[in-house]
């Protein structure tokens, strides 16, 4: 297991208990009448307090998997247990509460509510739970300060850049102290430098708070920070080692070089 280095500090060693456990989970979509099996009897677990990365191309099912974990989508069969609770047997209202309290999601396209201010966006999950705005303000502002956006607390999302919006989204995902943080292509819509900054902040805030982070992505930028990497595709999810990924990369490089030589010759 790689040591994750950030800010020069070495994180404390955490216990390797599983937060999430999936057992024979299947999910099939109906696309204009034809069934597409996205996940086929997948069984795996995610340890608590770690950074898990789901790798795969678009349409591979990694988003689906995230949706299932986030209670946004329902599995066709199998069970998913999160912190000891079986979310596959939850009713809609239970799921709503689960989403509200136990999950924090960061989306590729930010998905801030355009008609709420930054601060209101951040405190929204708490407010949906009936909490008083004033009470949640303080902690929300503190978090915003950490990402350097406390001065934009009363601005509307459309006045922020992409990177700023995603930073707000990260705060929103964490402000209500969830069990699990899910990120679906968090840097997919951001350019290189901004993406890196956002990624760092995501990791920093999540790990500082001791949260479990599951990131779905097709980019390899996050690999240095991952505790576990999984390959998603063809209905299955399997854990792979970083070496395997690097090997793939090297293969790719070799093939590319060869092709180039061919082209130069002709």
């Amino acid at each position, binding site marked *: 297991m790689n040591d994750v280095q950030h800010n020069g500090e070495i994180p404390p060693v955490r216990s390797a208990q599983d937060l999430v456990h999936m057992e024979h989970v299947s999910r099939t*979509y109906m696309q204009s009448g034809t069934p597409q099996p996205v996940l086929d009897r997948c069984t795996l677990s995610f340890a608590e307090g770690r950074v898990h990365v789901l790798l795969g191309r678009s349409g591979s099912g990694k*988003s689906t998997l995230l*949706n299932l974990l*986030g209670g*946004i*989508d329902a599995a066709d069969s199998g069970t998913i247990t999160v912190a000891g609770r079986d979310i596959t047997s939850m009713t*809609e*209202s239970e799921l*709503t*509460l*689960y*989403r*509200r*309290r136990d*999950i924090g*999601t960061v*989306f590729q*396209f930010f*998905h801030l*509510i*355009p*008609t*709420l201010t930054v601060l*209101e966006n951040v*405190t*929204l*999950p708490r*407010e*949906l*739970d*009936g909490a008083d*705005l004033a009470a949640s303000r303080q902690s929300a502002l503190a978090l915003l300060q950490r990402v350097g956006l406390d001065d934009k607390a009363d601005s509307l999302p459309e006045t922020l850049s992409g990177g700023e919006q995603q930073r707000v989204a990260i705060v*929103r995902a964490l402000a209500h102290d969830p069990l699990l943080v899910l990120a679906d292509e968090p840097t997919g819509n951001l350019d290189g430098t901004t993406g890196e900054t956002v990624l760092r902040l995501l990791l920093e805030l999540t790990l500082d708070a001791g949260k479990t982070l599951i990131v779905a992505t097709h980019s390899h930028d996050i690999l240095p920070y991952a505790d576990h990497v999984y390959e998603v595709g063809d209905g299955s999810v399997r854990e792979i080692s970083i070496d395997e990924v690097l090997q793939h990369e090297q293969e790719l490089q070799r093939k590319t070089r060869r092709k180039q030589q061919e082209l130069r010759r002709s």
Partner: protein
Amino acid sequence: MNRALLRSGLRYHRRHPLQAALLVLGVALGVAVVVGIDIANVSADRSFRSSTNSLTGAATHQIIGNAQGIPDSVFFRLRSEEGVRPSAPVIEGIVQTDREGGRTLRLLGIDPFSEAPFRSYVAEGVDFTVLQRLLTQPHTILLSADLAKDLQLNAGDTLALTRPPLRFAAVVAGILQPEEEFTRRSLGGMLVTDIASAQEMLGMQGYLSRIDLLLDGAATHDAPEIEAMLPAGLLLQRPESRSSAIMSMTDAFSLNLTALSLLALIVGMFLIYDTVSFSVVRRREQFGILRAIGASRKQIAAMVLTETAVLATVGSAAGLILGILLGYGALNMVSQTISDLYTTMTVTDVTVSAGSLAKGIFLGIGASLLAAMAPAREAMSSNPAGVMRRMGLEDRLQHILPALTMTGLGLLVLSSLLLLLPHKRVDLSFASVLLFLLGVSLLIPATLRIVMRRSLPLLRFLFGTIGAMAARSISRALSRTTVAIAALMIAVSVIVGVNTMIGSFRHTVVNWLSTTLGADVFVTIPFTGAGQNEGTDVALEQRILSHPDVSRTATARTLSLISDRYGMHQLVAVSDDIASERPYKWTRDGAENTWEALRNGAVLLSEPFAYRNGIPAEPGQSVSLHTDSGLRQFPVAGIYLDYSSDKGTVLIDDAVYRRYWSDRKISSVAAFLHPSANPDRVAEELRAQLGTEGLFVVQSNRGLRDAALDIFDRTFTITIALQLLAVIVAFTGVFSTLMALQLERSREIGTLRATGMSRSQMIRYILTETGVLGIWSGLLALPVGLIMALILIFVINLRSFGWTLQLHVQPVQLLEAFLVAVLAALLAGLYPAIRYGRVKPSEALRVE
């Protein structure tokens, strides 16, 4: 209700003011019409009641007579010989002033000494000086402070009054200032004078209009005793039976108005549905996010409904204000019609009752919430995963399509049942029209699906690939397009239905006029207000006969009566049948022998009379009439069609009339001219000879027809306003639906543009689509509208008024309605078409 969500929702509407404005507008218009009509109805009702109240006062009974009224001597005998107390002599009539453009006022003649128990405002308003003036100076009047202000009169001023052929200079003897607001208002159009002056001014020397009695425990005699004292021909009646008879006539009229106003509200509801739906569609992704974050279904539904409620409240408030303004205008039309048809209304105060306003707000917010339910449900079920994946809204529609269709059919069945059952309830009949429209709307999705598939080849043939795309896109977006079509269809079918009904009615009336008005020139006592029974001397006939071009004449005596048995009706005594071919619904002895039967003492009944009083078209029927010599039965020899009024007429031979009634006057003379004579010229000459005094109105056949049709058209003016409204609301509904539609397909549009569709091709595509929508709305509206017309003509009109109308469909009207649908749809699609023509492919392709 979560405050954060509500805040978000309201801010959304603030950012999209056009949408919010549309919703507010939809509610406002619907509420305005409902409130406006309600105000008009309530005001007319109150004005009628209060003027009745001020006339009747505290009287519990009234003695009334026939044509001329009650001879003085009856009162003197009751009072001086029999000592009947409390009792009050009353004279009522209509006079005209030259102020305020010829205002009509009611003249009430009373005996100040008898008034205290009946109309205390009179007794209280008369001190000694006023009494002296009233009694000793002829033609002195009292009027309320409000009326005095309107006419700018003080005590001692003169007011010129006319009552053809007489003119007077009435002097104001005093001003009445009753304490009670209600009484003050009800004196609005009334002048009070001493009974001696009233007899002079109204030409009623020797007669009274009625005698008021207060027969409670303290009275000197009870009702049976007094009835025994009355000579034959006089009746003892309760005032309520009089006014309730009049009110049952005006009720039917106001019910029709209310129904039309509710229709406007329903069309408004479509608009609300569209706009809320549109806002939900626009925020679908937002709702998905909210659900993903943890908003519950109920919270989202509550958000949508609360937003709607807030906007609806604003709209209702605006609607109330608009409605009050509309009410003023509507009241004028309503009172004019009531004055034309039933009884003169001299008070036209607008009463804005709390009830009308409450109704408006309740309906406005209620209807909006109802209309927003479906979109709220849609928002509620926004799949959190729908952010990533478009869920099949259309799939859902396919799912419930059978249920919708079954419900639609069920409503149609229910509606037919309500229509076919032999009841006379007008409100149930209107409810069945509503059910019919709803049922048809629910059948539209299924119909469209079938129809679109069939029309694909035709559209491809006409418009090429674009045409085929248009057809398919309509089918694919059925859940949206159905609503647009339904709204437009209902609006246009209403236009078709109402116009066809009016057209048929008018056609029937025109035909009827030409067969019934057989004479060339008519001389009548001017219509000073329904309910007055002035007549003139028989000598008039001779004067007309003396004109060289007149070959023969016929007279008619028309009386407007109210009886306990038959309510409000007319008795017309004619000396001859002036109809060239009287249209009979049924005769006992055959058309050729019917007039003979009349001369032998039988009577004819007009169709409304027979319908309203449940007299079947069979032999052996008779009517009981109060003649001057007691109650008599008259056998019925036939039922004829009569559209001159819905009051109901009993037609009797003149000689028979004079036998049993002591009245010797006539109301009109119909003159037949020699074949070569010109009716208009003869009318002109007779007018010069007779009409200068203002006592008679002389009209040629054509003039009379035009006048009758004028009244007819005036009565239906108000429906034009409603139709216009329906079109506006439908148009905006279609517009917002199309906007929603295009928004949903923004990716498709982007793709099309990216693949090379030019701007003009895009415009053509969208316009073809909306054009097709318009065409189908129009086509569907025609049969639906015609069915509605059938219902209106053969059920509602019949049950409201008792008339048999002939259906008369004017193809031009149908074509016009069809074009309205198409044009509205095209216009509605113009803006979206141009807008999406301008969209850059990249923008549209980028999923927001």
